[in-house]
């Protein structure tokens, strides 16, 4: 492998994270370290405390034996004392015994020699000793010779005899060694165990992070339908995966919206543009008179304006669908909106032969985008004006109504025109959809799409109903919108 292609392969296929570089692994390592430190100090403390305990126990034993010897001495004098020491020394225990006459010459015991300083100064001492072979008068050949360290107490009897009683502390030391060994293996065990456990859990976590990474790479290659796997464990990773998926849903929805818009633009705006171009070209070609050219220009501007309007409507729908920031939401009186827009349109409706009725409560407030609600209402009224034929006789009424309905607020426009067939009620909310019978009227089929988008922005919906005869277009908006509007 050459150095040159190293980085390229790395970029092409993102490497799995090296175990030792992951956060999880580092956390595990810290955890192991803390655990081991804790175990070491705990075990060390236990070892120390037990060795202290053993020493204290030895001192108690020594004290007890000294007491016994003292009693023997008081009852039977020096002779009884020497006998007792001989008895003790013969015993199998770990004890060390020695008695010397006032001149310091040993007369009984199980050690060969005791330093003079120990004999001279009563009290506690530690010294190296050599265990006597068969002690005085004892002919047991099996008794092993031994050396060691002794912890002793010595004292001088009133008669000048000196008594030394002690314990071997080598045993105590070997006990410490045993503890230390247990302790050592324990720590090794803990390290091995926690490293394994840490590595396994790190692997598991890594696998899930890798899964998220793999999904995101697939999405980057263009497959927006991919989702991060969610397990049933319901842990933090699932929480993360769920919100990532929700985000992806939203992005996909927005992308779809964008795609729809571009498709629509391609399809429905190209046609009028082409027509316009042809017209201008034709006007350029025949140079009959200036008037005709001027007329052609004027009609071009007119078509331009129409295009701009369509374009604006499309953009507005797209932006409303993408969601405006909630800052544009304000406490809005729906009744006021209905009254104002109604009043604005009343004369036009009247000219179209339609009566307008506005049925709203005194006030009906909700958090909403007032402008957009007004625009939606305008679109509905303009549809009524366009699609309700002028009545030959009698009245045809258009009703704007607003009311509360449980959690929701309803704003509706009802007319007595031809109505919208049940089969078309969903379709008609889509962009550029115009029903066959409406082709004679001007329009681009975007009015209701905006109404639907406005409803969606307010987390509500549009419902189309039959007014027997006529159409009812109903905006159903939850009262509590605004703050949470995306």
């Amino acid at each position, binding site marked *: 492998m050459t150095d040159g292609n190293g980085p390229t392969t790395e970029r092409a296929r993102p490497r799995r994270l090296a175990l030792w570089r992951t956060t999880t692994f580092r956390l595990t390592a810290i955890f192991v370290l803390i655990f081991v430190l804790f175990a070491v100090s705990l075990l060390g403390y236990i070892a120390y405390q037990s060795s202290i305990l053993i020493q204290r126990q030895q001192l108690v034993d020594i004290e007890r034996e000294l007491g016994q010897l003292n009693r023997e001495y008081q009852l039977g004098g020096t002779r009884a004392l020497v006998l007792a020491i001989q008895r003790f020394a013969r015993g199998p225990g770990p004890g060390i015994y020695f008695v010397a006459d006032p001149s310091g010459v040993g007369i009984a015991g199980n050690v060969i020699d005791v330093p003079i300083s120990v004999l001279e100064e009563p009290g506690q001492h530690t010294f190296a000793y050599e265990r006597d072979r068969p002690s005085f008068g004892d002919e047991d050949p099996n008794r092993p010779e031994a050396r060691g360290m002794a912890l002793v107490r010595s004292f001088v009897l009133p008669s000048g005899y000196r008594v030394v009683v002690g314990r071997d502390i080598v045993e105590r030391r070997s006990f410490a060694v045993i503890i230390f060994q247990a302790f050592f293996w324990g720590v090794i065990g803990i390290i091995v165990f926690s490293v394994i456990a840490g590595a396994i859990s790190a692997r598991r976590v890594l696998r899930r992070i890798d899964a998220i990474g793999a999904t995101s790479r697939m999405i980057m290659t263009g497959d927006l339908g991919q989702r991060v796997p969610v397990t049933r464990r319901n842990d933090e990773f699932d929480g993360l995966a769920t919100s990532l998926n929700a985000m992806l849903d939203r992005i996909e929805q927005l992308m779809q919206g964008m795609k729809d818009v571009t498709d629509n633009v391609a399809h429905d705006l190209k046609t009028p543009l082409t027509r316009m171009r042809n017209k201008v070209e034709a006007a350029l070609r025949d140079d009959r008179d200036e008037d005709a050219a001027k007329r052609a220009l004027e009609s071009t501007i007119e078509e331009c304006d129409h295009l*701009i*309007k369509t374009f*604006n409507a499309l*953009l*507005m729908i797209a*932006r409303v669908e993408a969601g*405006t*920031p909630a*800052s*544009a939401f304000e406490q809005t009186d729906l009744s006021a909106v209905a009254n*104002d*827009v109604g*009043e*604005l*349109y009343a*004369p*036009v409706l009247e*000219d179209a032969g339609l009566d307008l009725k506005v049925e709203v409560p005194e006030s009906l407030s909700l958090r909403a*985008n007032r*402008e*957009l609600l*007004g*625009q939606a209402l*305008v679109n509905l009224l*303009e549809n009524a*004006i366009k699609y309700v034929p002028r009545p030959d006789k009698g009245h045809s009424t258009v009703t704007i109504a607003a009311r509360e309905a449980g959690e929701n607020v309803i704003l509706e426009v009802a007319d007595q025109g031809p109505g919208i067939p049940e089969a078309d009620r969903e379709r008609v909310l889509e962009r550029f959809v115009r029903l066959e019978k409406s082709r004679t009227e001007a329009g681009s089929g975007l009015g209701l799409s905006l109404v639907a988008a406005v409803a969606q922005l307010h987390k509500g919906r549009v419902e189309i109903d039959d007014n027997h005869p006529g159409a009812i277009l109903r905006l159903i908006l939850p009262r509590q919108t605004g703050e949470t509007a995306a």
Partner: protein
Amino acid sequence: MKILIIEDDRDAASYLMTALDEAGHVTHHAGDGDTGYAMASSMDYDVLIVDRMLPRRDGLSIIESLRAENNKTPVLILSALGEVDDRVEGLRSGGDDYLTKPYAFSELLARIEVLARRSAPAEAATSYQVGDLSLDRLSRKVTRAEEDIQLQPREFRLLEYLMKHAGQVVTRTMLLENVWDYHFDPQTNVIDVHMSRLRSKIDRGQDNPLLHTIRGAGYMIRD
């Protein structure tokens, strides 16, 4: 009127300058935000036309700086963004009016003329007079040649707005914005119908009509 146009699109700027020249105004042009700000703060203009998206420094920040220096020159913001919240943002930064591209020149002209006049202190008048038509804002009485005219509240506001800008062209969108407080394009002839009703109340049977329709632009009330 002396007008500064801060706009980076050369074609749009030169079109505007020619058209405003023809309408009898003096125009200066700045092609980026820094130059625009320097010119606006060092010279006296009657109106600034500021594009929102500019190289080097965006339009809203220019306006904010000017306002912070207590420069009260009326500003018309031009923008390709037309959403409600964009407009709100624009006006909040200190702009006086907001126009979305593409726009009709007549609309822009009407708006800057109203803006320039707005800076004159005739603002707080309590009554308006155009010919023999008078409107009292306090008693809400309207008379023409000494005769009372009964108006609906909205008609009153419509007339009030027109008379406040007597002699100036007022477009349909301006009326919708200022009288109804909505910012959408009226799709049909909504405003025209209201105007014809108002006209029938104040001009019917009079020899010299005061309310005039300006073709391709809007309305004007004048003697």
